């Protein structure tokens, strides 16, 4: 499959401060996003995530490096017609209504009137804001703004959608809604490139990720390759046994009532515990193996640097 987005050796530095001091932000970024996948771009604050995205969009001009969108140079009009972008903490012209807002962006793509109207109603439906179509943006909640922002990014039916922290500042319901929309985009055959802090969400929806720390890509690849299947420990919640009986089997935490949470690191010990419970006629309430999460990986990598 062709690469939806390809970045080769991207460098960018800024001159900051009153006495201009050169600060290197991107120190040679290279990555590749396959068509039709959801790609996650992770990194701590200040790593260069937003800078990378702005370079792709032509908001910032890199010192060095090559970027291609569906094989086209990234600044060409052809490339721009196929992308949609949602910035972090978006702010829009708050005196416009949702419909007027989308209409304006539709005009920028020189969409014909009928086509525009169809698209707008379709998008409003997609993001669940049909009822607020004639409401001024100044009256929108954070979550609603995020969604209308997403709609603006999709007005031209882009093949590549770039989202900068799309889940930031949303409540769990809001995050779920956006996640669902992103998955639906993938189902429509679009490619999604998103940067985020919220690792659980990335884990849930991304196919491949790249981790950027201090302007460099530390790790890149399919999620399942990066995060080992290895079981770190098992959490066992049981009742009917006493503390001293469980000595040496694992880390002990008590929960309210009779229940005990035990963090077991060795697999053999689990069998022992199961036998114990059976013998003493206790009860196992839950047995959850914890594998390495993306967060563990992330924190581990970042700590190394």
């Amino acid at each position: 499959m062709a690469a939806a987005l390809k970045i080769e050796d991207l460098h960018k530095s800024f001159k900051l401060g009153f006495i201009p001091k050169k600060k290197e932000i991107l120190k040679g970024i290279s990555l590749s996003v396959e068509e039709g996948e959801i790609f996650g771009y992770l990194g701590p604050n200040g790593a260069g995530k937003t800078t990378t995205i702005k370079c792709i969009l032509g908001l910032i001009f890199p010192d060095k490096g090559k970027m291609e969108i569906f094989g086209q140079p990234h600044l060409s009009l052809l490339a721009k017609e196929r992308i949609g972008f949602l910035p972090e903490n978006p702010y829009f012209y708050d005196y416009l209504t949702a419909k007027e807002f989308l209409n304006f962006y539709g005009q920028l793509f020189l969409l014909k009137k009928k086509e525009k109207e169809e698209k707008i109603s379709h998008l409003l439906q997609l993001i669940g804001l049909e009822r607020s179509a004639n409401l001024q943006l100044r009256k929108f909640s954070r979550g609603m703004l995020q969604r209308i922002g997403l709609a603006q990014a999709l007005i031209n039916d882009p093949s590549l959608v770039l989202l900068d922290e799309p889940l930031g500042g949303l409540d769990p319901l809001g995050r779920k809604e956006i996640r669902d929309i992103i998955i639906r985009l993938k189902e429509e055959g679009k490619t999604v490139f998103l940067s985020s802090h919220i690792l659980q969400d990335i884990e849930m929806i991304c196919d491949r990720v790249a981790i950027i720390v201090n302007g460099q890509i530390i790790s890149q690849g399919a999620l399942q390759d990066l995060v080992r299947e290895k079981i770190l420990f098992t959490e066992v919640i049981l009742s009917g046994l006493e503390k001293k009986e469980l000595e040496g089997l694992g880390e002990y935490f008590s929960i309210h009532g009779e229940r005990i949470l035990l963090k077991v690191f060795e697999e053999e010990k689990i069998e022992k515990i199961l036998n114990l419970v059976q013998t003493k006629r206790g009860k196992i309430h839950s047995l959850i193996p914890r594998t390495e999460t993306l967060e563990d990986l992330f924190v581990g990598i970042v700590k190394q640097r």
Partner: protein
Amino acid sequence: MKRSSLHEKEFTFLFLIFFLFLSCGVFMGLKLKIEQIPRKKIPGSSIIYIPSGKYLKFATFGYSSLLADLIYIWAIQYYSDYSIQDRFNYLDHIFSIISELDPRYTDPYEIGALIAVYEAKDMDLAFKILDRGLEKNPDQWLFPFEAGHLAQIVKKDYKLAMAYYKKASEIEGAPDITKRLYASAAFKTMDFKTSWETWLEIYQTVKDERIKKIASNHLYQVKATIDITALKEAIGKFKAKYRRNPTDLSQLVKLGFLASLPKDLDGKDYLYDSQKGEVTPPTIPWKR
């Protein structure tokens, strides 16, 4: 693909630079052309319609003295331009604005008066300006001093000159010559009493020998004038009665037309020409 977009970028850049210089050249050229078109330019003509300097002062937020300077400088250029035909129409107005904005700026009063007198040939305006100057600056002897000069030399209104010189002399710092000018002007208005008293005062108070001499000469002149006038009056009465001139001045005393025969300041007798009936002082005052 990449190479052509790079070329494209460079091309647009060069085109923009070219267009920049082109438009610059065009507007500069147009400007030069516009210059040549004769236009009834009255630079700063809008100033003329401002109702009063009083309101202007409030509008200038404390920069009134700067504004006064600027308007003054403009006014000088304006009045130096002889091509503007009716430039004196607002002379009073403009200088009154300047005085409203910065009443203590002395130059404009002087220059305004000079322009009024020598260029606009409007004496009254000159006096008006200088009066305003004095009114706003009672400590400046210069204004009545100059006004006195203008009255004396140009208008030849000695009474007016006298009044101004008096005013000037009363202000601290006025030069000594003010008093003398006052006395001279008094003489010219034939106010001999004042003239005599002033010259006497000068004579008695002054230390410079040269000026003392001048004062003394003037006193001589005043006395001579007073005396000669009295003598002429007496001669006239004599003539009326006896239908001839007296042969000798002493006759006037003998026959009771005069109480006593006046002598000049040095104590000498006045010269008398019985033929013409004229009296002259024995010495020319300046040659004593």
